[in-house]
Every structure is written in C-alpha cells, then in structure tokens.
C-alpha cells in the first residue's frame, strides 16, 4: 500500500487545480491519461486569442472606425466569449478538459458518473430570477435547464444564505471554495455567445409500476392508437406521458407553434391556461375556508384560539386504531412501548 501511495497514488493526495481528480482519469502507473493526449485544438485557440487589451480602448477604437451598433455588440460578445474561454484554460493549467470517462469516481461502475453541480453564479442567477424578477418556477426551470425542485431548493438555500449574511454568521468559505474546485460545474456565463448550459433533463417521466409489464393488445390497423390509448391499456387511471411530465406546458407551447399560431396567440393561450390554474386554486381555497367556517367553531382565548369541530367516534374502526380517527379508544393500549416498534419520526415539518 505504501508503495502505491508513494507512486501512482500520489496524484490523489491533493486536488488537481481546476479539475476533478478521480481514479478513472489515471492509468495504472499514475499518469493522467488525458494529459498525454495532445490537445491541438486547445493550443490553436490559445494562439488565436487576443492579448488582453483594455475593453474601453477597444470600444473607443471601434467608435473611431465607425462600426455600427450591432456589429460592435457582436464583437463585444465574441471578446467576452474568448476571454472566458481563456480564463478557463488558464485555470486548468494546460491540462485538457475531462472526458466522460474521466468523471467516473469508481472505475468498475461504468453507470455512475460525477455529474456537474450548479456553479455559484448560476445559483445566484436562479435566485435573482425567482425573487427579484418574480418569474414562476416552471419558466425559470425551462429557461435554465434545471429541475423545478432544484430551482426551489436553490431559492430556499440562497434565502438562508442571505439571512446568515445579514446576521453576520460565518460562512464555511474555504471549504466551499475547495469543494467546488474539486467538482465539475455547470457554468453560467453572462455576456458570452452561449450564456446558459442546460444542467439536467427537465422532463423526466417516472417509470410507472403498471407500465413495467409487457402487454399484447391487438388493435385494428385503421385505428389511431395514441399514447393516451396505450396508457389506458396499461392502467385505466394512467395518464399519457404528455401529462405526466413535470413541465407539460412546454409540450403545449410546441404544439401551438406547430399549429402555426403567432407568438401573441401562443402567449394569450398560455396566459389563459395559467389563469385557469390560478382560478381553480383560488376556488379550492375558497371552498376550504367555507368548509372551515361551516364546521368549526372558534373560541377566542387569551393567547390562542380554540377551534372546535364535530368528530365521529365510530371512525376508530373495529380495532380502535383507525388512522384518521381522533383520540384513542378506552381500553386499547398503545403499542409504542412494544419491542421492535420504531420511534424514529417519519417526517419533520
């Protein structure tokens, strides 16, 4: 072991700057495999890139030359892209970018890869989009190619971060920097030609248990047998794939586009759909409040309000342990002290 640690294992002691450092990226002798590959493309680009001139002076020169605005904008974007690329290269220190194979932390497991995490800039951007510009989560998720749940989680975590900052609590900054430097990241590069890199597939369809079986279902040739019908064959209650994905709105938008609707029409239709969803939510909320007022009697207390509601003692069922029932039946002992009863909470509010 010590020979290995001094020889091939030496590379893993400290992280590789600007890159991941997994077992699969090295050969048996401990050489970085991708470093051997002569990356001519990288070098060429390095030669082509301009020396870092001052941005203002370039703009001034372009003004003198009399370029029009669109051309200047395009040039500025090109320069920004080149600058970012150059920085990236410098950070990697001449080592080529990782291939898919280099991102396997476990050499035997071909089906597991270290997938990129959100970079700090992208997280900040997501937070700004949701809190400052008040965009709804699905549209932010679709724009940035990030799962809706992840967007929500980022906003939640960022909110706490801001709170900590306001409270003057100490961040684990050195830890965060070091860890993020070891992980592949999804970048966000504003002002470049391609600012957004999709982070993950956003329309994941869960494999429903009832679709796991193979069914032989004869249908006439003349029949238009659609996804909806197929779903019915698997299970009567199963919805088709277009409705089970997290962002069905994207399918609708695309469909309207294919129908040849103009942009305004599409936006109008989308707005109608959104409004319908909102009104439905409002309606259910209204109904809930009405139910509460109908069934619950509120008595104002000194510190708390007491709410009284009629319940049925019959709900406890035959064994007196009905799950929705209120209270416990007299004479029915609790089981929580019995051997083998797990008392770990199942959820935390």
């Amino acid at each position: 072991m010590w020979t290995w640690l001094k020889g091939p294992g030496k590379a893993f002691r400290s992280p590789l700057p600007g890159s991941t450092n997994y077992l699969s990226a090295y050969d048996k002798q401990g050489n970085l495999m991708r470093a051997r590959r002569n990356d001519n493309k990288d070098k060429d680009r390095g030669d082509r890139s301009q020396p870092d001139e001052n941005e203002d002076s370039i703009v001034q020169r372009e003004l003198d030359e009399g370029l029009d605005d669109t051309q200047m904008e395009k040039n500025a974007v090109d320069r920004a892209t080149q600058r970012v690329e150059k920085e990236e290269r410098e950070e990697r220190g001449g080592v080529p970018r990782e291939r898919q194979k280099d991102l396997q932390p476990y050499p035997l497991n071909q089906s597991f890869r270290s997938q990129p995490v959100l970079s700090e800039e992208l997280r900040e951007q997501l937070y700004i989009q949701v809190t400052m510009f008040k965009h709804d989560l699905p549209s932010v998720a679709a724009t940035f190619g990030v799962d809706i749940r992840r967007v929500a989680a980022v906003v939640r975590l960022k909110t706490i971060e801001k709170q900590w900052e306001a409270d003057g609590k100490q961040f684990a900054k050195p830890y965060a920097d070091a860890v993020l430097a070891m992980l592949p990241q999804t970048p966000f590069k504003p002002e470049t030609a391609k600012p957004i890199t999709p982070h993950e597939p956003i329309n994941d369809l869960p494999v429903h248990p009832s679709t796991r079986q193979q069914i032989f279902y004869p249908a006439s040739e003349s029949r238009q047998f659609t996804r909806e019908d197929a779903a019915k064959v698997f299970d009567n209650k199963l919805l088709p794939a277009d409705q089970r994905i997290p962002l069905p709105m994207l399918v609708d938008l695309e469909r309207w586009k294919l129908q040849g609707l103009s942009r305004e029409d599409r936006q109008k239709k989308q707005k109608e759909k959104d409004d319908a969803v909102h009104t439905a939510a409002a309606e259910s909320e209204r109904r809930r409040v009405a139910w509460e007022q109908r069934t619950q009697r509120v008595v104002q207390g000194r510190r708390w309000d007491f709410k009284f509601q009629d319940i049925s003692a019959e709900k406890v069922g035959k064994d007196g342990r009905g799950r929705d029932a209120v209270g416990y039946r007299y004479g029915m002992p609790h089981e929580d002290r019995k051997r083998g009863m797990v008392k770990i909470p199942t959820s935390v509010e």
Partner: protein
Amino acid sequence: MPRGSRYHGLKKIKVRQDWSKENLYNLSRLVTPPAANKTFFQQKWLAKSMTRAYHNPYVREGTWTRTFDRRLPAVVSMDHQYLARYDGSEMASGRGSGIEKHPRSDVEEDDRKGQKKGVDKTPYMHMTFYPLERRLDTAIWRALFASSAKQARQFVVHGWVKVNGKRMLYPGYQLNPGDMFQVEPERVMYATGARKRKANSAVSDQERREERGADEQGSRGAAKSREEKEMEEENELDEEESDAGAATLESDEEREAMSVKPEDEQDAKKAMKNLVARAKRILEDSKRKLSGKRQQELRAFAQSVRKTMSKHRGTEETSAAADDSIEEFETALAQIMTKIPEDAVAKDSTSAQQAATTADAITASSPSSASSNPQMQDPAKEDEYNARKDAALLHAALARARTNPIDASKPYATPWKPRDFMSAFAFIPRYLEVSQNICSAVYLRHPVARPGLAEVPTPFHGETLGLAFNWYLRRR
C-alpha cells in the same frame, strides 16, 4: 457488521464509505470476482458481502432486508418537441414499432459521430441499495459534509445536524423529498479539513510530509535556514509555473508542482511571504512614479508583514493576534491603494482580481509576460500597470487570509485546507442540492436510474450488484 473484522483489510478487499487512503488503495485494486469456479450460491454470497460492506454495514441485516425493495425506481427523460409533434400513433407504422431507419445510414451516422449505437440500457441493478441513500447519515456523507458515513452518523447522534431547522438525533431518519438538512459548519470544516499535528498548534500534519518530500527531492545544504529554503521553493515554483503554463504535464514532478501551488496560496504564512515579495516588487517597478514618502510607506508595510510573520512562527500562536495583524495590513493596504492613481485602480481592479484567483496569477503579473502585451510597451505605463496589479493582488491575498485565518483554537489545522485524498472521492449525486457556504443540503427526490446512468453511487460492477439483488430477492 461482524465485530473484530478488519475495517480496512488489505488482504480481503472491502471498500467502505470513507475517504481514507486505505480505502482509496482498496478501491484501486477492486475487481469483479471471477465466477467460473464458484457455485451460484457462492457468487451471490460473495457479492452480498462485498456490497453490504460498502452500503452501510451498521444497518443491521434484518433492518436492511425489511427496507429492501425489489421495485427499483427509474425515469425516462422525454423530449417535449417529440411529444408535441407525434401523438404516439406513428409507432403503429412500419412493422408495428415505428418506421425503421435504413440500417446502413444509421451505422454511417454513428461512425461519423463516434458514438455507440442504440439506446442505453437502464442500469436497474445499480439501484439495489437505493433505500439506504434515504438515510440521514448517508445523505450527509454524500453531500461531502463528513469524511465517512460513520462520522456522519456521529454528527447526527451528537446533535450537530438539523432537519428542516429542528435537531434530529436519529441517523436512520428517512429523508423525505424536500427535506433540508444542516450540519454545523465548524464540524464540517473539522471533518473535511487537514488534521492538526499537535493540539496547541495550528500546523497540519500534511505539512510535515510535504517538507519531508521536499527534503528528499532537493539537494539543498543543511546549513541553510528553513526560511531561506521556503523562499527558494517559492521562487522555484514560480519559475516552474511560468514554464508549465502551456506545456502538457507528463512527469510526476511537474504535476506535483502544479498541485502544490494553490495550497501555497491558501497557506497564510506563505501568502504573507508572497506579500513581502510583492511589496518589494511594487517598489522596484514603480520607483520613478512613487514619491519617496509612499515608498517609505510601502517599505514599512513590508516590514510589518515580516515582523508579524516572525512573531507567529513561535509556538504560541493566538488567533486574535493573527486576526489583528491581518486587519492592520488591510488598513495599511487600503491607505496605499488610495495613493496609487485612483482611476487606474478602478479600471483594472476586476480583471486583476480575476487574475488573482487563477493559478497563474504571478506569472501574469511578472514583467516578462506583461511586456508581451502590446498595450504595455510603454515602460512608464507598464510600471503603473504592474503597481496597480500588485496592489490588487495584495488585496486579494489579504482577503483570502482574512476568510481563512490561522487559529490554533480550532480543532482542525488552519489555514483550512482539504484533507488528503478528498478529491478522489468528491462528487455530489444529483438527488441532493448542496449549499457549501452554509453547510446545508436539500434532499430533492429519491435517487433514480435513467438510461445509461444510475444515481446511487456504488463502486461495484453491475454484475456484482445483480447478484446481491438476487440474494435479497430470495426471501420474498
């Protein structure tokens, strides 16, 4: 887990959930056991024992067999454009499974792209142990907040972990999608940082090894003092970096030089030393521009840096003193910064800060590389440019020293740096969203398999996992 068995045995390879060097070594030697001379039962038994040694052996076998689920979750990512274009009836055309593409053209296309043909299979067997990923202690370890699953368990039991803002003492708590868990940042820094050599000093035990390595490599005389040696090393590093900028890294030495670099920058002691050197350089470069008074100020600044360094080299190192000195430098630097032409600083500050973060910061600021810049041909301009850049670099270095101070009272070596061999194990699976700054993470959803990719991190081949899955299938 049977008592008395070697946790990191080198003869019987058992991969564990931790970041130790023994584990890394075992991982590098791990193979799928040959099945030719074994009965099916033996194969399954071996596979089971291998996988259970990794996937939380502290969960009792009975508990695990109860949580085991033969229905493994998977997803298929859908293309919304395809869904909009077709309603599914197109699959009835041809022979009943969609119109086939011409096989020849398919192959050609694949060859051109250099990709493998066909759809990836969903690696269901890799998901065998997915219920264990729901456990709080495993999730903490997966989020890189602890150096082993066992340590994560300890954190939970000792009350350093909160779930949704409430303290949770059960390591076996099954996280629900949307649960947020927080670990005390100090504990995380302790778990993932380098260890201290002695209880009352902030120096890490990794440093001694580095020194030893340097001694073995170099042919420097023993008469030279340690300080001189360090200075020399630094200079060498600088030189090597400037060479290694574009070159490919082939030998070990070069790579080591590259990898050692950022640590040096993090090391506050060496950073301070760098400061002195840079202050000197500022003086030399811009002698003509700066007035005598400002030169004196800069010199005094450099001296104060050196003095505090020598003060802190002693055995008694107090955090407060280090903090104070760094703050003093900050103010001193701020004063100097105001005296350097302001418009120039404002213009260049952002790019210089970016440069400071890159590894090649020093090469970029050195006169040789700056002179390759056509804008900076004018010597006077060059001086000004360098002065500005150096000031910004100093500023960045000080900021870093402030966020990562030397503090002997901490339970880990300071300035903080990641523990050895961490990078080989550093990955965060997609079912977690982690915020490293506040050491919190959200458990987004249960892990799933998708075509070609399984989200449960496991070091074993699909074959081994399939056998293990079969083992647990037996009883139900």
